[in-house]
């Protein structure tokens, strides 16, 4: 990228930095100025990604969202590690346990623990009623042993971030987010649900980016008949209302497909509908760029078409693609969630946010076990974080935004 800087990006970035400086508070000004002095020289030679990073860094909210997203990524990679208990295991005597509060200080010392719980079925209403047993303190340990799980399919381990003393979490359970009607641990289910929902979002965005760049690129670079066909295709796809189409496609999925098959089918369905906007944008970029001098230069120096596209043109809007992709992920996540919520997407025993919410979609949960609606909060946080991050990335990456 160093050899093909976007024309005009550097002065722009500089201007902006000065504008921003005046807006900053006095306290920060000193610090920024120090950096500034160090960086002024660097600005002129900084590569594109560094400029982007500098600008992104100043978007505090986006930075914070970035941290949330990194945390999410960790959960996606290691849901087992963050879980406390087997997410699929039902426990006959443990249904509808409310959220157990973790107490961090025990008699002044930092010794996290939860109180034990005692449950009894109310003979009149038949409701499981839980009360805290203050006599019993269950110490919370970090890096404790629990159920065995796979790490990325590579090896098995039983070490968890949070747990109780060796081996007896089943006897002295910690339900960080309570349990559902079958006595399954809601926190662990949320962790595994995060993996499924977020990866569906990521993979389908990845596929739609691939499709978007490929088809948009062909359309924009070559023009003519391919352009016509692709653009009409995009128009048709965009003119179809997305929600009914998703519903129709997912409803048409054979019901005897396994969890994995449904998972990939949902991903594909979301991607096949989702690539069109990106395709349009990429086409527009290509239309603009192919007239640029540096492309002409490359052409004249005898570069192959492949080299022109992938070496010269695509890198100039990498950042743009990344921003657009980031903004597309929450849309995909929401789509999966609502398809599953309607019972059309993933179904139990698969765990996803949509499945969790769908299982909470009954009177019992709403009236007696409101903690089962917490996966909704996870969806909100994730979608907000990804949206803000995407916004920040776009602002930082797009030199023409000011």
């Amino acid at each position: 990228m160093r050899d093909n800087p976007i024309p005009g990006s550097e002065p722009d970035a500089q201007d902006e930095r000065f504008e921003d400086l005046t807006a900053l508070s006095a306290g920060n000004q000193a610090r920024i100025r120090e950096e500034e002095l160090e960086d002024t020289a660097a600005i002129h030679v900084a590569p594109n990604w560094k400029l982007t990073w500098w600008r992104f860094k100043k978007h505090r909210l986006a930075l914070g969202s970035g941290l949330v997203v990194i945390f999410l990524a960790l959960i996606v990679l290691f849901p087992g590690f963050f879980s406390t208990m087997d997410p699929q295991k039902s426990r006959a005597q443990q249904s509808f346990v409310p959220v157990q509060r973790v107490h961090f200080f025990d008699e002044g010392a930092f010794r996290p623990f939860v109180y034990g719980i005692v449950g009894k079925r109310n003979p009149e209403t038949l409701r499981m009623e839980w009360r805290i047993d203050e006599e019993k303190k269950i110490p919370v340990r970090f890096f404790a042993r629990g159920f065995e799980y796979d790490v990325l399919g590579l090896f098995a381990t039983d070490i968890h971030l949070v747990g109780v003393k060796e081996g007896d979490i089943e006897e002295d359970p910690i339900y960080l987010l309570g349990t559902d009607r079958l006595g399954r641990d809601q926190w662990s289910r949320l962790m595994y649900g995060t993996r499924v929902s977020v990866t569906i979002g990521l993979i389908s965005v990845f596929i739609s980016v691939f499709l978007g760049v490929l088809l948009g690129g062909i359309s924009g670079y070559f023009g003519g008949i391919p352009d016509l066909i692709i653009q009409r295709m995009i128009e048709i796809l965009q003119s179809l209302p997305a929600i009914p189409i998703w519903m129709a496609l997912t409803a048409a999925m054979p019901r005897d497909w396994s969890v994995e098959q449904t998972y990939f089918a949902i991903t594909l369905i979301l991607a096949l509908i989702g690539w069109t906007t990106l395709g349009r944008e990429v086409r527009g970029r290509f239309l603009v760029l192919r007239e640029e001098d540096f492309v002409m230069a490359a052409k004249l120096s005898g570069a192959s078409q492949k080299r022109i596209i992938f070496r010269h043109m695509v890198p100039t809007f990498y950042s743009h693609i990344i921003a657009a992709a980031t903004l597309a992920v929450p849309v995909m996540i929401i789509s999966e969630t609502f398809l599953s919520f309607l019972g059309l997407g993933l179904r139990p025993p698969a765990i996803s946010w949509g499945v969790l919410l769908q299982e909470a979609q009954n009177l019992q949960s709403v009236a007696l076990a409101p903690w089962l609606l917490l996966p909704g909060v996870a969806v909100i946080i994730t979608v907000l974080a990804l949206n803000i991050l995407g916004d920040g990335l776009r602002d930082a990456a797009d030199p023409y935004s000011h």
Partner: protein
Amino acid sequence: MKRFYTNHRTLLLIGVLLMVLTLALAACNAAPAPTQAPAEKPAATEAPATKPTEAPAAKPTEAPAAEAPAAESKYKEAPMLAEMVKAGELPPVDERLPEEPLVEEVAKDIGQYGGTLRRAFLGPSDHNNYVRVVYDALVRFSPDGSEVIPHIAKGWDSNDDFTEWTVYLRPGAKWSDGEPLTADDIMFWYNDILLNKDLMPNPANWMVNGDGSVATVEKLDDYTVKWTFKQPNTAFLLDLANKDGADLSIANLAYAPAHYLKQFHPNYADKDELEKMVKDSGFDTWVELFTVKALPQTNADRPTTAAWVPDNSTVADPVFTLKRNPYYVGVDPEGNQLPYIDEVRLTFFADKEALNLAAVSGELDFQARHINMSNYPVLKENEDKGGYHVVTWPTFGGSDAVFMFNQTYQKDPEIGELLRNKDFRVALSYALDREAIKELAFLGLGEARQGVPAPNHPYYPGDEWAYKYTEHDPDKANELLDGIGLTERDADGYRLLPSGKPLDIEINVVPAFGNWTDVGQLAVEQWGKVGVKAHVEVRERALAFQMRDTNELMTEIWNEDTTGFPFSGQPKMDPRSNPALTFGPLFRKWYETNGAEGMEPPAEIKKLVELIDKGKVSGREDQIKIAQELFKVWADNIWEIGTVGLTPMIQGVVVVNNNLQNVPETAGNDWPLRTPGNTQPETYYFSQ
């Protein structure tokens, strides 16, 4: 008129004693927990089958003849009808009622007229909701389900060997449009519906003799009709009590308004006119038109004999309103014409949860159907706020969630073979942790049991059979599974079929009455522990029923009702039942085609069918023995794995408006009883 024919004194006495005991116990216990109810409840028996000999059908001519025409009206009626009489729109009540009206006992006290009973239904496929409220049949099951009592018909009689049954109608009884109800209406059903090859290619089971011929029905006089079978038929009354147009099927009729339906029948109607009618209503054949016109659920104009009749609406409408039938034959013991309540309003709910929510907020006056038992705690906690109380009517027996294994499964021959293997089914039964299922899906109610009648029922085969294979014993399950050659396992530890293909049992669940989805998920987990992979497939009701018929279902969860009625109606134990059961659709075909098509059942199933057929023609004593034998075979062969039973899961959690009176605290609850129809909703009333 006497309600019970009283020769069989001992039986009646027992019944009464049980009733008193039940009431006493209920009274002692301020808040009876639902678990207690079943033990107290008098058993549903097929008792009436033995009674009819002594049932000298009420002498029709006796009482009214002597009466001098009274100046004052003998009976009282609802104010709204009195006004119509005054306006000359309706004949006076004495003329509308038959000479001997049906006197319906009230559960508590004499009621007041008026009000609208608000209920909910789930749309066109929920047509049996209507059937259960009106329970419009010639004879009915009693509130406790222990016997058959007269209803639209006044009584019956049979010869000594139960081959001839005479049914007496009520002179002066009328259809809801005021036309007289006579023997001709039964004859119209017999000659023009049952015997019409177009309408009924296969005559209804209950009307078929042992040799395959159809039983004869003849009119003795205007109000007397005689059925003649070629062999003793002790199940006649039980069958007759279910001929109320249930399941949206003309096969479930035993009388029909001839004066109205003739216009749709080619034997009577003008050919061109009929053809025009068929065309105009968008049908292809007169059969389709007739089938729709013949049932009040789908045709508001069709006269009925029920207490409430459709008011210009059908099950296809968002609000299905039933208004009082001015010609209903029933009165209370003080001579007030029933029903007390003016109108029944069924409101459409697209979603069961929304329906439950409406119940919690007190928007429904009387609802058990579609009330989810898992909502019991929510319902209970909101009783005061919603102005209702919850009554529980646990089922008679059987099991409220059973796994039925398709014994004729063919889609995958290897899996089909496995499902037919008794050891496999026994292993799956041992692998179930029924205590966990009971806690998680049944609110801790009921008991682990197979699908056999309740312990207090005469058909109870004994503890050994009720609890057979119900202990949780994964080791035994593993041993059995290893024993039948399922020894190879895949990477995840699931057993492979002998051919090396993966084994995956599909459990079909219709989210209909219980939270069977949860039961299914628990089974998937518990079977997984012994290496049997399974998954739950939730299907819409109509689709699942169709797949039953076409032999596509592998395993299904449903409830095992009808255990009190193995010899009549459509019992779950009979592979010939219609509509088809998951248990053996091809056996059904085999019997239907006399062995030409379908699959020949194995010896044990033939034995089952033999026992059922023998029971149908046996006297009471033998019938009990046969039924016990039947349930031993049933439990031992475990074609259906029972889980938990004796709970109110299936339409037994009843939400009752606090102002609604005469709803019994205990009642028989089963599909053949058409609960709540058997509790006589005509006698319910709103206290003002």
